[in-house]
């Protein structure tokens, strides 16, 4: 049996080498790339050992300003370029998607600047270096150097980002939205992560030794890993041979603790079981596991507990190893780099080792591959684990295409057969709840529908008094606090079950204020002053992790970044996962508290969004419940609106909008986050040009969450009967996302 998703190209930059060949050779040999940090001054760090990647040159043909480049982006371009070359993939001749996972983006290039801005946001210093900072900057550099990509998503689920990029790629391919996806992750070392993991006492001063009796933590590495994934039929028609098959995957959240894994490993075990079921294999078919294997005392114990739970007696047979003792923990790239390694293990029949394992922990009952690689001839199927802060975990299964495991019945998929059609939604998707948290407090559906008729929201901060359990939320940053309250309101109003419900939030810049405060302390008082409770809040997915724990949501979780269409990008990702049958329902939204440095950064990226007619900045969080129509009907949920089309573009918006169906009979509106000349130009040639227009900025104020506000307002107005149909249009400097919403079938006359 086959999911029909093939890996046809691989690319790597790791501390062992700047391509697949050199990395693989040294991996199998057992080489370790761990040494004292040279990239920056490691003085006064608790542990200084890291794994640095060879320096990668910025492509000469790039027209982007040098300040828009980060080491993260340079490594990403090198690895993605190798993957595309090896797959003979030409994005000019096919619809190719791009999904980039990461955590730090341009942090290395900007952490000094951020520290100086702390407490002095109006510092006269140039902010140009911030162009490299957003998670989405890497996608933009890839688009420029290797595109055109038809669809781009930048995501973070902390240390499982690279694996979740591959899970989302599988959804895109199942939906038929694209012919191939370049998916992976990239993350560069920086002071912030070294200080942060040191503050958590999570780094082994002697270097990462997974499964070792005396292991004391991980080693931070850096690098990039990318895979080209495509449907088997597409690859065959292109005459391209597969490296391996991506046969199974599963992703979910522990909803337990922001840094500690749940001791029983239940969620991880269930993800492994689900990923194997998806692949149509059982533990007896798995010939290798690439463990997450960070080398922290607790990770390795919990992971082995979870493996034993999922594999039962087969644990005595299946070899398990972790490459982190050789390349370190590459954070947002790790899930992708290790997916590349696992695909190579399957393709080459050679197991990679756990280096440094001279004294295995007797408490861990594992079949090890110590020191050097082991040639086994055939690996029928292999599994790769990736776990992240907030308990956001993902598991991938790769199988050998030449000699796959004996066929057996596959787990029934919730997903549709492979379909195609621009922006078509195969598994009907509906909106079953909206919540808007604006000053002074939470708004329900009726009030959201009347936002365009109402006065401008007060500029006072949102009052969370009484709405938040302040002890449980004691470590939340303002973004997570707003998100937790808005999600709580959404779940109460929509009566959605927590089981299987996931979260995807859009955030253009992550936690710039938190990162600035953290780095200010580090530069001011030294690395030992780095705050362990603050550090986990600095990953872009922190609010997702904290909110999933607060609300007890176990579905898939990640953050996406796409500048001023980040909230729309989150909505699109949620629709993709639900439409592909990957999730029964997802909370999609954005949470954006006002902040001094955030304000300054926004003025660099979105100079037109400031004040004036668009209104001053305000605290805003918006949450939308995106659900499969089938699931919504089964639980007799109130459906607010049906998601008819989601169309996305990276350059030619007019062409993309021509795929949007014209409004039908009945009242209809174009709902915008904010008016702009770009929107005017796009609508001019569109079949929606005559529709009444509503902009949310004058009513809700300016915010990075405003695009989510526009979708929520449109859904609420359809639900309240004000209109039968809406087009929500979000634009961001040539890119955009359009969402067409309809009155649900069986409600009113539309």
């Amino acid at each position, binding site marked *: 049996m086959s999911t029909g998703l093939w890996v046809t190209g691989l690319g790597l930059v790791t501390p062992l080498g700047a391509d697949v060949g050199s990395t693989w050779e040294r991996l199998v040999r057992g080489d370790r790339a761990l040494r004292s940090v040279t990239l920056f001054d490691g003085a006064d760090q608790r542990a200084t050992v890291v794994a640095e990647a060879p320096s990668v040159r910025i492509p000469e043909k790039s027209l982007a300003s040098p300040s828009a480049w980060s080491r993260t982006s340079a490594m990403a371009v090198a690895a993605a370029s190798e993957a595309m070359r090896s797959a003979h993939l030409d994005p000019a001749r096919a619809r190719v998607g791009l999904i980039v996972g990461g955590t730090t983006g341009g942090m290395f290039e900007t952490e000094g600047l951020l520290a100086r801005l702390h407490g002095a946001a109006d510092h006269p210093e140039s902010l140009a270096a911030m162009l490299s900072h957003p998670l989405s900057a890497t996608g933009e550099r890839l688009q420029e150097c290797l595109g055109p990509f038809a669809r781009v998503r930048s995501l973070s689920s902390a240390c499982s980002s690279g694996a979740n990029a591959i899970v989302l790629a599988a959804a895109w391919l199942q939906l038929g939205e694209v012919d191939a996806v370049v998916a992976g992750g990239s993350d560069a070392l920086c002071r912030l992560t070294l200080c942060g993991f040191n*503050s*958590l*006492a999570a780094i082994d001063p002697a270097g990462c030794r997974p499964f070792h009796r005396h292991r004391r933590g991980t080693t931070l590495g850096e690098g990039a890993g990318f895979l080209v994934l495509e449907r088997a039929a597409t690859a065959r028609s292109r005459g391209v041979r597969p490296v391996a098959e991506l046969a199974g995957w599963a992703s979910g959240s522990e909803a337990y*603790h*922001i*840094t*500690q894994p749940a001791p029983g490993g239940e969620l991880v075990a269930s993800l492994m079981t689900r990923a194997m079921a998806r692949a149509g294999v059982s533990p007896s078919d798995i010939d290798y596991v690439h463990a997450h294997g960070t080398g922290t005392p607790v990770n390795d114990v919990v992971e082995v507990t979870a493996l034993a739970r999922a594999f039962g007696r087969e644990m005595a047979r299946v070899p398990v190893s972790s490459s982190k003792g050789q390349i370190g923990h590459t954070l947002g790239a790790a899930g992708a780099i290790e997916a590349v390694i696992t695909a190579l293990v399957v393709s080459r029949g050679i197991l990679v080792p756990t280096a440094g394992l001279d004294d295995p922990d007797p408490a861990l009952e594992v079949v090890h591959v110590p020191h050097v690689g082991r040639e086994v001839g055939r690996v029928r199927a292999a599994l790769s684990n990736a776990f992240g802060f907030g308990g956001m975990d993902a598991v991938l299964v790769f199988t050998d295409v030449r000699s796959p495991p004996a066929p057996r019945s596959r787990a029934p998929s919730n997903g549709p057969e492979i379909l195609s059609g621009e922006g078509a939604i195969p598994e009907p998707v509906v909106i079953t709840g909206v919540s808007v948290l604006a000053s002074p407090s939470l708004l329900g559906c009726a009030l959201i529908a009347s936002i365009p008729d109402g006065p401008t929201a007060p500029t006072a901060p949102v009052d969370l008094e009484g709405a938040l359990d*302040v*002890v449980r939320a*004691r*470590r939340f940053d303002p973004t997570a606090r707003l998100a937790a309250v808005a999600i709580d309101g959404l779940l109460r109003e929509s009566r959605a079950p927590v089981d299987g419900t996931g979260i995807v939030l859009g955030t253009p810049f992550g936690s710039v204020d938190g990162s600035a405060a953290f780095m200010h302390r580090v530069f001011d*008082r030294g690395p*030992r*002053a*780095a*705050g*362990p*409770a603050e550090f*986990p809040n600095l990953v872009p997915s922190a609010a997702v992790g904290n909110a999933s724990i607060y609300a007890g949501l176990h579905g898939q979780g990640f953050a996406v970044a796409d500048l001023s269409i980040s909230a729309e990008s989150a909505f699109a990702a949620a629709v993709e996962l639900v439409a592909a049958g990957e999730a029964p329902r997802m909370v999609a939204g954005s949470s954006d508290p006002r902040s001094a440095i955030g304000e300054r950064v926004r003025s660099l990226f979105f100079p037109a969004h400031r004040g004036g007619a668009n209104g001053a900045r305000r605290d805003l969080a918006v949450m939308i419940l995106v659900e499969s129509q089938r699931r919504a009907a089964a639980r007799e949920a109130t459906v607010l609106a049906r998601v008819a089309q989601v169309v996305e573009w990276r350059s030619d918006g007019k062409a993309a909008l021509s795929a949007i169906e014209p409004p039908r009979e009945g009242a209809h509106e174009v709902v915008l986050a904010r008016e702009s000349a770009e929107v005017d130009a796009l609508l001019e040639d569109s079949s929606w040009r005559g529709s009444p227009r509503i902009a949310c900025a004058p009513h809700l104020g300016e915010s990075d969450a405003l695009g989510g506000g526009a979708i929520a307002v449109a859904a609420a107005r359809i639900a309240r009967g004000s209109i039968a149909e809406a087009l929500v249009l979000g634009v961001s400097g040539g890119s955009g996302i359009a969402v067409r919403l309809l009155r649900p079938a069986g409600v009113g006359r539309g």
Partner: protein
Amino acid sequence: MKLQGLRSEIKRLLVAELNLKGRDPEGIEDDAPLFGGGLGLDSLDALQLAMSIEEKLGVRIPEGDEARTIFQSVGAIADYVAKARGA
């Protein structure tokens, strides 16, 4: 007497540094367990507390099992800090 003042200082530090809103520092018992049941603190609070004690009281808390003993209660922390300062 000196130990009593140190205990109060640690209680104030606990509430402020761990952001225990609404908690009265003086209401924390000297020998109440801080983790698990007790105050409901977790391992990340322990790391934050160790960092704060080092910064504010000038005493470095060792890692691992030793820290677990020191962090049993406010009283135990005060004893450790007093001893470390006296040494």
